[in-house]
């Protein structure tokens, strides 16, 4: 059964304190791993897609990496505006449905 597990569930950082979020996945033939950001009361906002082990993508203070078993979202020198829930998801089956992890809620304090 396809599965996505994210850790930690919650993370508190001081502004400027770099850290990483983990997404472990089990899927029959990875066809895409997605990172989304979700602010309270809003829908998920697309951040990155990764397709193969070794791939990396960056956007501002965020960098996503992928191995054969997991993905990391590295946050460098975070700011309070980076506070949100970060969701990881993979394609499951043949119709493009996404299986999501439970998310990591990040709080960055000034």
């Amino acid at each position, binding site marked *: 059964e396809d599965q996505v597990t994210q850790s930690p569930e919650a993370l508190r950082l001081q502004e400027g304190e770099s850290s990483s979020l983990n997404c472990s996945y089990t899927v029959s033939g990875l066809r895409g791993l997605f990172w989304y950001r979700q602010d309270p009361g809003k829908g998920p906002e*697309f951040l990155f897609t990764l397709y193969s082990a070794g791939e990396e993508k960056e956007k501002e203070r965020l960098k996503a990496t992928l191995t054969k078993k997991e993905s990391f979202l590295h946050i460098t020198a975070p700011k309070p505006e980076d506070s949100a829930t970060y969701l990881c998801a993979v*394609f499951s089956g043949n*119709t493009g449905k996404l299986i999501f992890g439970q998310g990591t809620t990040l709080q960055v304090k000034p």
Partner: protein
Amino acid sequence: GAGVSQSPSNKVTEKGKDVELRCDPISGHTALYWYRQSLGQGLEFLIYFQGNSAPDKSGLPSDRFSAERTGGSVSTLTIQRTQQEDSAVYLCASSLVPVQGTQYFGPGTRLLVL
């Protein structure tokens, strides 16, 4: 519009009533997905549309749930005889490329069943 839109943004209903939730995908996106997000359950897939057809309905939790899409655009998710456990945020997403395209989400409809 530039993004996926959903209406209403909030809906409060009484147990046993029917509700309709609407999704307007990004213009030109052929694939449309419905998900449900509830506390403790995370985001769960409900149904996938390719054009007006629904090749994957595997996530619909019961026969009280149905959805349709018309003109390859607007989609409506209908919940009949609502129950308290139906309370959740219902999210719609669309993608340009079916099956393997990036899905862009709307703001969601927050449904509360009293």
